[in-house]
Structures are given as C-alpha cells and as structure tokens.
C-alpha cells in the first residue's frame, strides 16, 4: 500500500512535476483511496510553514539579498579573498567554515543554507566555480547547522532519550568539526582538478579590463589604510552583531535573522550608499519569491510525511528491518541506511519522533551509549538533508544559487562519500566524539 505512494511521487518527480505537486498529488490520491478526510491536506500545508523556528528562513534569505545589493557581501568576500585566494577551492573552504560558525548560532540547516549561500554566492562566482558546484558545497555544509549547538534536533532527542541536552551539545562540537573537515577535502580536490584558480584569474582580468574601459580607476574603489579598515568593519559587523546578539541574550537565533535584515538595510542605505529605499521593494519581492519556492516544498513534505505516518509506513519498515539481526555493526549500518532514506522524504524532527522510541531500546540493548546513539542519529539526519531526491538544503541551495536540483544532485556524490566516511568514523570509533563528555 505504501509502495503506491512512493511510486506515484517518484513517477511525478521524474516527469518533472513541481516537487510540491508531486508530493501533493501523490498524497491526495492516497488520501482519496484510503477514506481519509482530505482537509488534512490544508492542515498539513499550513502546519508545514507555521513554525516559529522556520521564520529564520525568509529573513535570512532577505538578509542575504540585502547584503548582496547593499555592498556588504562584496566587502566580506574581498577581505576573505585576500587570505584564501591562493588556495585551491579557497572560497569553497571558506563557505564550509562559514557554515560551521553560523551553525554555532543557528539550529537549522536550511537557515544556514539560505544565509551562507546568499553571502558566498558572489565570492564563489568570482572564484570561477560552476554554480552547481558552489550550490553543492553549501548544500553539503549547511546541515552542520543541526550538528554544532544550538540545535533543536538535540533538544528533541534529549527529551525522547532522557539524556542531558548539555551532553548532546558537547558531543555535537567535535562531530561538527569532523564533518567540516570531511567536506573541505573534496572541495580542495575538485577545485584543484578543475583548475578553478586560473578561471578566477581570467574573471579577475575581465573585471579589471571592464573597470579600465569604464574609465574608473581601480584605486578610487579601493580605499586604503584606516579608511579601508573602517569601510570593511561595517560589513564585518554583520556576523559580529548576529553572533554577539545571540550570545549576549539580546535576541533568539531565529530573531537574529530579522536583526540581520534591519542591519543590512541601514548599512546598505546610509553607510555604503549602494542602495536606496526605492530599491527595497524589488529586493523584498525577489526574496519573497525565493522563500515561497523553498517553503512550499516544506509544506508539501509535511503532508507527505503525515500520510506515511498515518498508515504507519516508517514504523512498519523500522520494526521489520531492526528485527533482522542481532549484530551491533549490522544494526548500526541498517539504522544509518534507514535514516538516510527517511531523510529523503521526511523532516528531521518527525524522523526522530518515530525512530527514537523504536530504535533506542535496541541500541541500549546492544550496549550503545544513548548520547553516542544521539550523535549518530543527528549526523544521519544532517546527511539526509543533502541526499537526493528529497533534500531540503539541496533544494534551498539550488534555489539560492539559481541552478537546477539535478545539476547539484550530480555533484553531491563526493560529498556524500566524505560525509558517510565521517559518519562511519563517529559510529564505529565513539571516542572521536565521546571524549568530550
């Protein structure tokens, strides 16, 4: 019965129906044939968007667009280029590290993708990267948002598994660092293989020529000394205000997104003077449409997940698969596999609510520390945000970088391998993360 649901959805996806329509139509057909009251469709579309934590998504998308138009992103990129311009894949590595730092204030993978994606967009373009590659780097690194604390995923797990949130937060730090390092490696190797360095040089040469043609002197655009420092300090103020404000307890991680919006408007209009109030409506419109494109999919995914849970598809699969073996290694591998697949269709919170009550007793019986099990699970959930066909950071990143999901999907393979290697390390060598608790 559940098979029909998946086959319909996949068929519609392959035919190129919008993802919202593929998930929506498959769910509707299933609901109609199973005598379920169809108003649940509206309820779930509503609930899929109606979340306080998700408000970070529209505001970080808007903040990113404002930073690009108002000159903040450009200055951050220029400054960073000075340090990493001579490293293969330097700008991509910076994007990974930026995701790790951003993760320290945000508990959401897609907020991380929206925020870091729109800020690093210009930099990676200048570095000569193919947009699908840039999008892949961000799609792969932004799930670290749920690994490095704070993270709602850990709070949900700690309550379900009756472990300490603080312990989960602690093991999240080394786990996030391991994932970050795992992602830097393929970024460096791919950039080296594709020789993005010389492409960047070409782009820089073209830019310089264009500047000369326009009669502007490059010098005039590049203030020097103290003035240059002050000029870029306003741009650097963005991350400082966001991170500082959250740690000082002035606003919540979610609210930090709207603070970034207001700050970007003020700096762009009054300090850099690169935009005016008249530009705001078009920027707001563009960001609103990007937000709609991403969040309507989350709405449809909430519906699809409800249907699966209502007819107990995930519960049934879990119970049958976990009963197959008594081997600790096999069970951990099976669990990893199940979560990765579930992550293709379901949001991470829903997966935990179903999986933890079924899987945790088994893990405990096998002698796995619940905190260790929690971090294995979180790492899996993070990877699930990237795995095609349904990966929420994959979609967000593709939308932000204005590229197609199949182009990004095709490039995820080396990153998936790297992340799965990190997962295996965390799973089978617990001391890599557990030393901290």
């Amino acid at each position, binding site marked *: 019965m559940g098979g029909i649901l998946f086959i319909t959805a996949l068929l519609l996806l392959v035919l190129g129906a919008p993802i919202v329509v593929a998930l929506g139509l498959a769910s509707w057909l299933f609901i109609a044939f199973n*005598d*379920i*009251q169809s*108003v*649940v469709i509206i*309820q*779930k579309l*509503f*609930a899929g968007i109606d*979340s*306080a*934590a998700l408000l970070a998504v529209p505001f970080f998308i808007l903040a990113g667009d404002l930073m690009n138009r108002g000159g903040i992103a450009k200055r951050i990129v220029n400054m960073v280029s000075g340090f990493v311009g001579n490293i293969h894949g330097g700008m991509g590595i910076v994007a990974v590290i930026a995701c790790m730092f951003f993760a320290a204030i945000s*508990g959401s993978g897609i907020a991380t993708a929206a925020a870091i994606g729109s800020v690093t967009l210009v930099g990676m373009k200048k570095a000569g990267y193919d947009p699908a590659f840039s999008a892949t780097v961000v799609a792969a690194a932004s799930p670290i948002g749920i690994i490095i604390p*704070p993270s*709602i995923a850990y*709070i949900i797990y*700690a*309550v*379900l598994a009756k472990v*300490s*949130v*603080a312990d989960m937060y602690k093991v999240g730090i080394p786990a996030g660092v391991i994932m970050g390092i795992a992602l830097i490696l393929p970024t460096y190797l791919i950039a080296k293989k594709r020789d993005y360095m010389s492409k960047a040089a070409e782009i820089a040469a073209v830019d310089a020529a264009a500047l000369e043609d326009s009669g502007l002197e490059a010098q005039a655009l590049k203030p020097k000394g103290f003035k240059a420092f002050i000029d870029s300090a306003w741009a650097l103020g963005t991350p400082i205000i966001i991170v500082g404000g*959250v*740690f*000082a*307890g*002035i*606003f*919540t*991680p*979610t*609210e930090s997104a709207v603070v970034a919006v207001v700050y970007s408007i003020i700096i762009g209009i009054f300090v850099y003077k690169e935009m005016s109030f008249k530009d705001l409506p078009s920027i707001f419109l563009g960001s609103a449409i990007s937000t709609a494109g991403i969040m309507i999919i989350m709405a449809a995914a909430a519906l699809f997940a*409800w249907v699966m*849970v*209502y007819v107990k598809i995930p519960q049934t699969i879990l119970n049958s698969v976990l009963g197959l073996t008594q081997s600790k290694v096999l069970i951990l591998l099976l669990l990893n596999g199940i979560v990765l697949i579930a992550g293709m269709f379901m949001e991470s919170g*829903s997966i935990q*609510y*179903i999986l933890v*009550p079924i899987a945790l007793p088994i893990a405990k019986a096998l002698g796995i520390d619940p905190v260790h099990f929690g971090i294995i699970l979180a790492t899996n959930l993070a990877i699930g945000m990237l795995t095609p066909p349904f990966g929420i950071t994959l979609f967000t990143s593709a939308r932000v970088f204005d590229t197609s999901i199949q182009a990004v999907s095709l490039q995820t393979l080396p990153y998936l391998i790297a992340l799965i290697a990190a997962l295996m390390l965390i799973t089978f060598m617990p001391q890599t993360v557990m030393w901290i608790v």
Partner: protein
Amino acid sequence: GSNNDSAASTSTAQATTETSTSGEPVVLKLGHIANPDTAYDNFAHEFKRLIEEGSNGKYEIDIYPSGQLGVDRELMESLQIGNVDLTVITASDINQFVPDMAVQDLPYLFRDWDHVEKFLDSDVAQEFFGLTDEVNMTTLGFMPRGFRHVTSNVEPIYAPEQLKNLKIRVAESEIYIETFKALGANAQAMAWSEVFTALQQGTIDAHENTIVTTRDYKINEVQKYVSETGHFFAFAALQMNSNLLNGMSEEDQALFRESGLEAAKKLGEEQKNDEASAKAELIDLGMSFNEVDDKTAFEALVSPVYDEFFETHDKKYFDAIKNIQ
C-alpha cells in the same frame, strides 16, 4: 456557536463500529502531543487498557505519540473530522474552540490539589466538559497535571515585586500573558521549541511550568530556581469524536465514558505523586525550590485580569468552581 455542522456531516468515522461483528477488532486512532512514557502517554495507555479489557477485545486503541498525527489545534481539528478518533491534549487548547472553557486558565482559580480533585468529581465538571459537545468533541476526562510555577535564573521569587521586568516566557494563552503583565513582568510569548535555547542564552530569564514538565524537558540544565507560585493549574484532556461515540451502543458509550473518567482519576493520583518525585529529582540535579507563603499579594494584582475576562465571558463556571469546598 453552531460551527461544525460540516464536521458532523463529513465524519465517516462512526461507520467503523458496525464492522465489529466480523470478529476483527475495531481499531481507533488516539493521537497525543507528548513523548512516550510521559503523563499524557500514560493517560492514553491506561485508557487503552481499560477499553481493550472492558470490551473483551472488541476495540483496539492505536496510540500515536509525539504529535505524529499533529499537535494542538491541528490535532483537534483532525478529531472533529474523524481522521483521529481520540486525543489527549493540553486542556487550554480547547479554549480556541470553546471560549467559555478559558475559565480554566484564570490565575489562582484552585486553592490546592484537594480543590481540583473535588472539582473533577463534581457535577460542575460534568457540565463544564459538556461544553465541547457542540464542536463535535466529547470530553471524556481531565487529568490534573499540577500547579504551574515560575522558574528563573535570577533569584528565588517570594513577592510579585521580584517579577518586575523579569523576562519570562509564558505559555500561549491570552489570560496567561495578561496575568504576568498584571504582575509587572516582561511577559514574552515564545514558541516552546525556542525556549530551551533562549533560557540558556539569557534571551529570557524565566519561564513558568509544572514541576513534572520542568523535569521532563530538562529545564534544570538552564534554570536554577523554582518558586512555587502556583499561579495556574494545568490539565490534560482526553477527547473523543462525538459522532463516533454517539453512534455506539449504549453499553459501549458507557464503557468509553467510564473508562475516560477512571483513567483520568488514576493518572491524576499519579501526577500528584510524580510531582513530589520530580521535585526531589530536580533538587538532586541542583535546582533550588522555594515556597511562596503569602499568595494574596499576587492574587490582588491579578484582579484586573478577572474583570476583563468577565466582560466577555459567563461568570457561572467561575463561581461554581470557587464555591466548591
């Protein structure tokens, strides 16, 4: 109001009871918002046990915990239309459907546990529960969860002056927020999912909840003091789709109604005991508890909340509850 004619006409759930003659059990879906092994879940399981044993296996109750089928409003709507047959929900959430039930949110409504228990055994309670029938939800029972207290990181609270400008997260309810504003606090409405992080980072200094929830949600990791202000009393409600219930035989209806009350009473006793053990556990974990001997100062300050409430709501249930001795 006469809302939910549509709910009544679209519900197909009652059809299920007729299939029971075939020997296959009638499977009813019960959805609730809490995690396995919590008060809400135990309430659901006790009810399940009573129904399955009492009906000799004619009915089977399938429990979906953790908001798997939806939370709060959404879950209640699902109950109205029959996608879910039974729910255990936070009783205050019913207020959005039945405004007169909001009387339960009023501050210092109940004197003590004994008062609460007498209320639940009274005819007043039965009449009060009946309010939900008009929205196609039958309230089978209220499980008392306990008094809500203030937790904070600043200092133990003995007097309302100490709440002045305290950044406190208050559960979503107009009365709750107005109460804390009347007490002088900087009352914040914040989604529950944000609360832990906000307490940790100091975006808010305080929150208010039952002792059991304070333990279950690890609030001790980010808060130091529990001041037993006992400003509100919290209930969880067991509800059933009215059409489904009314379509059953008299005997089955009686079984469902009696089992609901019995489970609520039994779990209520457990809550009272669990409150004491949760308190002991939290003290072990380093939290500091203080009693508030003189609550009259608090009660005096919240009287505007009552005045405003009775401008738009019937005073009948309030008087009836207060008069229970």
